[in-house]
């Protein structure tokens, strides 16, 4: 598995990186953790002339408390997210989803922002980030300050996001959901697999009643999806199987999930209903 030859640059500032990226246009590729880019290069599905490694840019590293939200820089690995008390306390849903990604080796290299930029519909971070109303910071060369793109607008299509050629995703900022219960239900045949489907549920329950709910879905379409009708219908319901079964069963309605070796679209829609119920109940602690 040998990639085609390419040049490699490891800038130490965002400006330098943006300069390189804009000079090379779509002949350049950003390298974060490399857990998706390197397989692409090695299988020669892509052959950029220049690879711009952003892992040495200090300003992109780290997880910070911005008051109402938690900001995760682009050079932050999954493992750093898992080890972060801020994430554990305020972004339980992201935490439980990241725990289920691949294996420790990959989690020590891969980044949340790299995965968001890659936008694999079967990736596990898109749905939680979308469900938690995150905002992405996208930086272009020569522009002061990043564009703020809401998660709802960020995902465009299969492997396509609002990040254009020559741009960099610098961080994702996720509003705190302190005290919410969360659960990520990942459905796989073998443990190291990408999600056949995944359901991300966060619930704020008060005295056994669901006050608010957020539901995101992985691999139920070309991009991560949210189930707003289900979320609304759940609000005010007691957190019991009886009360929510029918609501959750509709989670897959109107979606166009893929048909592949792991399941046809109708099976995935069926699973979405079952697993949404399970995820919501688990998130509500029921």
């Amino acid at each position: 598995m040998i990639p085609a030859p390419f040049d490699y640059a490891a800038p130490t500032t965002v400006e330098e990186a943006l300069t390189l990226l804009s000079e090379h246009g779509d002949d350049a590729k950003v390298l974060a953790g490399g857990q998706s880019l390197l397989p692409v290069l090695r299988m020669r599905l892509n052959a950029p002339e220049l690879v711009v490694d952003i892992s040495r840019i200090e300003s992109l590293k780290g997880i910070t408390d911005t008051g109402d939200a938690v900001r995760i820089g682009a050079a932050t690995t999954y493992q750093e997210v898992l080890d972060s008390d801020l994430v554990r306390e305020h972004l339980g849903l992201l935490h439980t989803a990241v725990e289920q990604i691949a294996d420790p080796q990959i989690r020590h290299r891969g980044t949340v922002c790299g995965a968001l930029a890659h936008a694999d519909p079967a990736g596990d971070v898109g749905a939680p980030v979308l469900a938690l109303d995150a905002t992405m910071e996208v930086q272009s060369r020569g522009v002061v300050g990043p564009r703020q793109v809401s998660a709802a607008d960020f995902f465009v299509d299969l492997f396509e996001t609002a990040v254009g050629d020559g741009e960099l995703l610098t961080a994702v900022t996720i509003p705190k959901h302190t005290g919410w219960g969360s659960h990520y239900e990942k459905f796989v045949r073998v443990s190291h697999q990408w999600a056949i489907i995944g359901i991300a549920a966060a619930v704020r329950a008060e005295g056994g009643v669901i006050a608010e709910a957020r539901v995101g879905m992985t691999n139920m379409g070309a991009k991560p999806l949210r189930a707003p009708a289900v979320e609304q219908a759940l609000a005010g319901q007691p957190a019991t199987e009886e009360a929510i079964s029918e609501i959750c069963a509709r989670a897959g309605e109107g979606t166009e999930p893929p048909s592949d070796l792991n399941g046809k679209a109708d099976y995935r829609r069926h699973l979405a209903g079952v697993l949404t119920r399970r995820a919501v109940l688990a998130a509500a602690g029921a």
Partner: protein
Amino acid sequence: MTITEEPQTGNREVGRDRRRKEDQRLITGRTRWTDNMQLPGMLHLTMVRSPFAHARITNLDTTEAKAAPGVIAVLTGADVTDLQGSLPNAWPVTPEQKAPPHPAIAVDRVAFSGEIVAVVIARSAAAGRDAAELVDVDYEELDAVTDLKAAAADEVLAHPDLGTNESALWVFDSVEAGTGEDVEAAIRDADVLVEREFRQQRLIPSFMEPRSVVVDPTGEQFVLWSSTQVPHILRLMLALTLGVSESKIRVIAPDVGGGFGGKLQVTPEEVITFLAARHTGKPCKWNETRSESLLSAHHGRDQWQKLTLAARADGTVTGLKVHLTANMGAYLGLVTSGVPILGAFMFNAIYKFPAYRFECQNVFTNMTWTDAYRGAGRPEATFAIERMMDELATELGRDPLEVREQNWIKHEEFPFTTVAGLEYDSGNYEAATARAKELFGYAELRAEQARRRESGDRVQLGIGVSTFTEMCGLAPSRVLGALSYGAGGWEHASVRMLPSGKVEVITGSSAHGQGHETAWSQIVADELGVPFEDIEVLHGDTQISHKGLDTYGSRSLVVGGQAVIAASRKVVEKARPLAAHALEAHEDDLEFSAGRFTVKGAGEGQEGVALTDLALRVFAAHDLPDGTEPGLDADATYDPVNFSYPHGTHLCAMEIDTETGESTMRSYVCVDDVGHVVNPLIVDGQIHGGLVQGIAQALWEEAVYDDQGTLITGSFVDYTLPTSADTISFVTDRTVTPSTTNDLGAKGVGEAGTIASTPAVVNAVLDALRPLGVTDIVMPCTPERVWNAIQGAAHQPLTESAAPHFEESAPNQDTPETEGGTL
């Protein structure tokens, strides 16, 4: 004999749970794998492979590739037509067997996607990989047949020149063989008839170390290192295929990282690396990528099985008829054609069927060729018959173990000649089953199952049974001759006594992870009375181990181990006259025990003489009896008198989530009878790994092609190989009914787990779902298939594509014509 405990071991090495002496180097990688080889001036090969399943090569232009930096040569089929010969098939199963020529590099037509059309020889692997993209191949696509049943209908031909897809029809009939009655009569007179069709999906062996070859042409001999299971067979076959003197070829299988039958082959890549080294005069290396391995290393299984079982109303089986359609793929590899036929002798399994007929139609398709994969023929047979016994029990409304017991060979009836003509030497199905039921908690689980059924639990419980036997220890040479196999089934060993008292054991079986070095040391330690640590086991180099038939078919211990015993005993016999001379006694008055010769009746305190001391005396040769050869070393070649027949009872409990179709293993108990055990740890390891491979066939693995003949499951993203995270802790135990046909009383264990476990799991899944009206689920029993079965939907074959996980914006590789390089 019913022994459920291990025999007393005392000081004996055999029976001890020794940690494997080879593991430190294997696990840490501080050893030499083929790809570690670096030779001066070594060149690197990159294969250019066809993206099409069936196509004519209309033009092949290597000009640009040859001009690329670092490229030494590019060879095409046309360049080597007269040199490459045809890859060997050692098993023409019938005199009429049809087979196309099998070139290492396709010359004018490709017959499966992944077939090699050119090889780039370059100074580095990277230069070769870059240049491979510059090899310009024009293809004219031909109709491809990539479905086994469609191929059997003979409409689209995999090889138009053959005029048919049918390679051979092989038949066994118990009337013709004189081993039993007429199956048609049994079917006519049956009270109960069970007719079923099962699918054995295509599997990929998935050894840990990818295949790798290095050929050094710079000495007097060609030295070939290969990650192979069969260095000896490879040497002979290379000589025959290429017309090179066998004495000019030395093959070395250094440490080899697994095979599972997948490296029981003479590969195009081995031939090509040899040709490339000869062409350039330089050492050449080829090392495959995992994608190349999945695509082009041989696959396994892939059959349709039609069975008719006739029984009386009381449950006594009166006959079995089997028709197999077996997918050869595009070519016949080393034993491709024989693999399904090995199953012929195992469909009757542990049962006393009076009438039996077996037919196997071997068929070509435009797919990667199939060949041996762990169990080779016997897992297919065992799956089918164990599924059928469950079906019969269901028809009769009886317990599946009870119906089996009614039909199996009773302990008192051994030795027993089966309807397939084999003589089973020993077995105790009653003991293994009783122990398994006890460990499993059979009655309690049945009760829980009833409760869950009663309450309509979302999670249903199923109990699966598999009471298997198998034939291994390949094989008595005369039997192989009768089956038209191209070689014998003996094994060779040498024992060398070094002057310092250390011992070298040379074995012709070629370990690739099994632990021969440990087990053989234990055996020799007992035979010669030397310490375990003082024994070195050498293998896998035709210059050191000049004679052998390698490792496959659970043969190493029961055939190769027996050769080691025979050679050891010859050493002792050679030493006896020298001991007599040293002790000034008569040979007949000597005893040999714990490494020493002593004089019988001379009392406790005598020292006698140690075998290791005699080794030094022989080295010095100062004082030997007149006419004695100064040497104790001995060789032995052992040809087994019979196969080895391990058996066991495997019980599996599966929980099925009826809402999602997900199945979870709750418990797995197996009680295997592999006779006497040399090393219980190694046996447990073989059983554990074997179980997982068999369970994987039931639940997870399947090689899927699309209609164009492209392998969709071309990486481990889609070929869902399980890991330890997907399995549970198995409960393993043993009964010991020694084999009567070798001195160890041992039976093969390498394939037992794989053979037994697949039907146990599928039977459990079905047992859980029968009350819901489910009668069959095609393997692997994926959650979707299980759910569909519950919904009553037809089982639709999967021809969906794999999910993409990587962007396929491929500026340098966007048309199939230029898509030639390694994957």
